[in-house]
């Protein structure tokens, strides 16, 4: 774990995000306040349309709030122009749901993984002379992919392997925060556990701060020590994962928890 554990890394105040969807006005976020400390592993759960993905995109600086403010590492990023977001781009990386869509089919895996190292914005934040080939070999090893994977194209890999490629790309610039938006829900059930374990190990080994968005409570329970439950653009419950599980405070959380199928171990 890093020495600065416990320091605030993300803070958001009264975030709202409104957008128009085919003439309909949608309020995706409705006054969110959230705080995250370095080294915490936060799971955000909720039904589809509850605003989970919108929230993490605002945190990652990929979208702008309609109102409210966001801080990363003590610096307000709400209205910073893209060219001054270098520190955020180097420190916060994302893993998306479907690796078929998150990996450019026309780029070689090596180019995909080193893309974060090649952007001028991120390069300025990194130590001088990052050796791309060496970094590529390091992260490929970290996600258990063969060393020659870099010369191939994404379609030559299975779904689970492709998600490993996406994770390797996220690790390439040595980020402090990993944001994973439904990281295993597009994968075969048989490889979900592998990818989840890989994420758990990587986060522990590198002392990463983790934000996981999922509709699957089992995934979040596996990965996270903190839990936020979202519903219609609001956070309805927030706390330690174990605490929320044992003493849910709202009916909505209880309903969500009850919807998880359980395997009965005792006979009738």
């Amino acid at each position: 774990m890093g020495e600065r554990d416990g320091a605030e890394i993300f803070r958001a105040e009264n975030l709202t995000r409104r957008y128009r969807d085919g003439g309909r006005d949608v309020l995706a976020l409705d006054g969110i306040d959230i705080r995250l400390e370095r080294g915490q592993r936060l799971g955000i759960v909720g039904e589809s349309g509850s605003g989970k993905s919108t929230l993490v995109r605002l945190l990652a600086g990929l979208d702008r709030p309609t109102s409210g403010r966001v801080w990363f590492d003590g610096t307000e990023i709400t209205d910073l122009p893209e060219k001054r977001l270098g520190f955020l781009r180097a420190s916060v990386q994302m893993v998306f749901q479907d690796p078929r869509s998150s990996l450019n089919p026309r780029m070689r895996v090596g180019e995909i993984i080193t893309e974060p190292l090649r952007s001028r914005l991120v390069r300025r934040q990194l130590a001088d002379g990052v050796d791309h080939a060496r970094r590529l070999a390091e992260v490929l090893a970290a996600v258990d992919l063969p060393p020659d994977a870099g010369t191939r194209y994404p379609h030559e890999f299975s779904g689970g392997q492709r998600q490993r490629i996406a994770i390797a790309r996220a690790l390439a610039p040595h980020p402090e925060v990993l944001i994973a938006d439904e990281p295993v829900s597009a994968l075969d059930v048989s490889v979900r556990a592998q990818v989840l374990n890989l994420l758990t190990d990587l986060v522990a080994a590198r002392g990463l701060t983790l934000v996981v968005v999922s509709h699957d409570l089992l995934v979040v329970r596996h990965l996270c020590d903190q839990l936020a439950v979202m519903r219609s653009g609001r956070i309805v419950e927030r706390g330690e994962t174990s605490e929320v599980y044992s003493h849910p405070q709202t009916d909505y959380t209880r309903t969500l928890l009850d919807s998880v199928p359980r395997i009965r171990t005792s006979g009738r």
Partner: protein
Amino acid sequence: MKRAQLFAGLALVALVVVTAVVSLFWTPFDPIRVVPGQRLLGPGWPHLLGTDGFGIDIASRLMVGARTVLTVGIISVGLAAVVGVPLGMLAGQNGGWVDEVVMRVGDVVYAFPALLLAILLASVFGASTVTAMVAIGVASIPAFARVARAGTLQVMASDFVLAARASGTSRWGIARRHVLPNIAPVVGVQASVGFALAILAEAALSYLGLATPRPTPTWGNMLRDAQQFLFVAPLQALWPGLAIALAVLGFNLLGDGLRDYLDPRLREVP
């Protein structure tokens, strides 16, 4: 079946290309020199397709005409792609007022009759192959811009562009590394279809005397020359007409075949 379409297109296109290349080194007879004693011969030997009203071998003129077809096609499609694709990408990547301005100007150019532009250019600079290429090229820009914009919008909505943004990749980097390689196939299809349209347009313009002037043979002005003998020697109009039809068909088949070949959703299940 789809494969057959692609190969038929390729074969016809190859025929045009080979003919044009061969004509650079060899034609059965001089394609320009008038031979008064041999006017309006029917198909036979040694003039396989006969001779025209000036006594010139039609087969030789057709061969040389293939050159003009390719030149006009390549230059006008190239012009349209080089201008239209970046504009379409610009519109698609930026959205908002940039998109609005680019596409509305495109609409205006699209609505402006290419023929009028060709007449305008021909009257200012004198009708030539160049004025025809510019007129056809400019008229084809909006089609390329639209195709590129639609493809760009699709690519920009993908997660790999979001990941690239999260990695600090600049707009330019996204355009170069992500958008362009992914829209290249649809642009290629548009180029092939655009090529067919350019051939047809060039034939129409030189038929009207708004493109390559005589004595350089083109399929369009051969058709015009044949017109006055339509009742005496109807076959004369058939040959250039057939050449135009086959070339247009070839590039269209190639375009459709490429589209099906490159789009896995349309690929036949084996």
